[in-house]
């Protein structure tokens, strides 16, 4: 990805969502993308996931420029190379668990028997073989997200884009999901994880920190360890108001591992949300 920028709106209402991003992702990496709300993480994931197009810059997927791909070619690339895991699960409520998992195979033109067989095997892999014919509403949050991961994996994608997959989950379920992603990563799949939770960087091999549409920090990490320079990055964030200052200190204290990590995440979100509004560049 070279000098990728994304602009929304036009005229005075133009917003710069991504600002000349340069990013190379190697096969088999587990990248945790962090940053405050509005920093451009999701936009970056959407562009990487071929759901969106950059306004400027070059994006090469598997050494091929995707700029000139037609919508149907982009759809096929999404189908074959990329698996999405969303914060809100995004399972189809009127389909059973197994049908949801098998859905990407429908667009490959696979027969019903074959795709249900593959989906069944995938559910077995994630330990939900006894929930195959449940409806999504009958599952817990963690189980639902596991199903979403199974769906993302069904086409054997090279990249899994997980946009805050644990955002709606309790700590136990989060752990299960992260372990699952870790297993997938261990099998060689590239994972891009968007998260607000610094704890989750333990699973990553690289942490990318974004702010105001730009990558402000990019460092490799060791598996099982939190990114070493993460804290300094957070401390280095500009604090714009006195109110933010007070809220920020409180949030950062709670964000330190070992001091109630879960509420800390929410506080951080709140604080970052406020900062974003004040610091976002308007073109």
């Amino acid at each position: 990805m070279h000098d990728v920028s994304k602009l929304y709106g036009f005229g005075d209402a133009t917003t710069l969502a991504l600002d000349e991003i340069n990013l190379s992702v190697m096969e088999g990496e587990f990248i945790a993308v962090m940053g405050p709300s509005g920093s451009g993480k999701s936009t970056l994931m959407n562009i990487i996931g071929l759901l969106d197009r950059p306004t400027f810059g070059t994006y090469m997927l598997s050494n091929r420029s995707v700029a000139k791909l037609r919508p149907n070619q982009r759809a096929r690339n999404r189908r074959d190379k990329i698996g999405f895991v969303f914060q809100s699960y995004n399972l189809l409520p009127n389909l059973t668990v197994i049908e949801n998992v098998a859905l990407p195979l429908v667009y490959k033109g696979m027969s019903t028997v074959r795709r249900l067989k593959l989906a069944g095997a995938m559910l077995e892999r994630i330990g939900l073989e006894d929930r195959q014919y449940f409806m999504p509403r009958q599952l817990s949050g963690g189980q639902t997200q596991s199903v979403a991961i199974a769906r993302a994996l069904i086409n054997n994608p090279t990249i899994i884009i997980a946009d805050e997959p644990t955002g709606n989950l309790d700590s136990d379920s989060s752990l299960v999901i992260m372990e699952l992603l870790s297993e997938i990563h261990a099998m060689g799949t590239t994972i891009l994880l968007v998260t607000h939770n610094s704890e989750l960087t333990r699973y990553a091999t690289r942490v990318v920190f974004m702010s105001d549409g730009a990558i402000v920090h990019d460092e490799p990490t060791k598996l099982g360890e939190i990114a070493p320079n993460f804290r300094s990055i957070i401390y280095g964030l500009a604090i714009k108001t006195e109110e933010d200052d007070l809220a920020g200190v409180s949030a950062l204290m709670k964000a330190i591992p070992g001091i109630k990590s879960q509420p800390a995440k929410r506080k951080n979100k709140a604080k970052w949300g406020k900062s974003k509004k004040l610091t976002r560049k308007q073109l």
Partner: protein
Amino acid sequence: MKLLTANNTKMAIHAVQQSHWRSLLTMLGVIIGIASVVTIVGLGEGIKHQIVGQINNLGNNLITVRPGSTQTNTTTGALSFLNVFAGLNDSDLLNIHDVQTIQQTPGVRTAVPMSIIAGPIQANKQIYDTIPVIGSTSDISAALNQTLQYGAFYSSNDNISDSAVLGQNVANELFPGISALGHSIKFHNINFVVLGVLNQFDIAPLSIDADFNNVIFIPYSTAQQIDPNGASLYEILVKPTSPSSTNSVKTKIQNNLLAAHHGEQNFSVFTQTDELAAANHILNLLTDLIGAIAAISLLVGGIGIMNVMLVAVTERTQEIGIRKALGATNRQIVNQFLTEAVVISTYGGVIGIIVSALINLGLRIVTNLQPTLSWQVILLATGVSVVVGIIFGITPAVKAARKDPIDALRYQ
């Protein structure tokens, strides 16, 4: 694509079944349209079939002469319309002299006068006001190709002026549960003895002939005595000597009567084939009319489907986003929503056909109509439903496919 369509069809059927009331209301226009078309076509086919059956029964060599100009011809000369009521009130347009004129026409075997005499009938100490009494000669039995269930027909040779022959329905009505033979009925202060009861006539709907199952035949000579106007004729039935000469005899009768009426065309001569053509014409008019109504109904139904599908596309925006994120192409999204529209429409068509079949069954039970339901009509109706689904489903489907995946995923 085949597998995808099968999958989409399954999902669409599931969607229709899940929201069955909404789907039913959506289909209503298609149901009404298809039901009306299938019913009217079936009715038309049934009536045609019945008329052909009646012609076969009465004999296709029967020529009918009616007072008044009852027929309208197209520019090419083909019979386009028969006004069966024209001339019925013109009591003096046809009389016994015309019967004689016809009888003298070469090729005519027999000409039978038919005269309706008004008045109440008394039988079994009860009075009946609505049973038509027809004065006719004994040749009526041969002219109508009909035999008696029991008894005998009055004969001119018998010189029995106060005898009557009953249609089967009348016999059952006047003398329920007993044989009418030998009983008397009182008409215009004359006691008529029932000589015989006719077998059941197969009278087709839209036939211009009276339903002879519901009439009483009395000798024409007696009718002349009862009627102060000399029993004017509402119809003369003619049988040619040879069936093959029916058309030529018809022309001769036409010419002879025209001469007898001093060139005034105040009568009509037609054969059973003309009757079939006239019935066809009426049915075609009816079919056109119902077809127009059905077309409007299908249009409204189609718009209903389009409306519901547009709402569905909006409601399911996030689903569209998810499907696109999972790799669905625009074409596959179009296919999915188009399939749904076609399934709804086809469901409507199938329900319409079932409704039509039930209407047909009801008509068969309640009336003497015998509507039919052919597989060609069923196929056509199903095809029309599919086409309606495609025409009105394409816009919502394209709208769904054009949704931006990001916007669609964010839609709440």
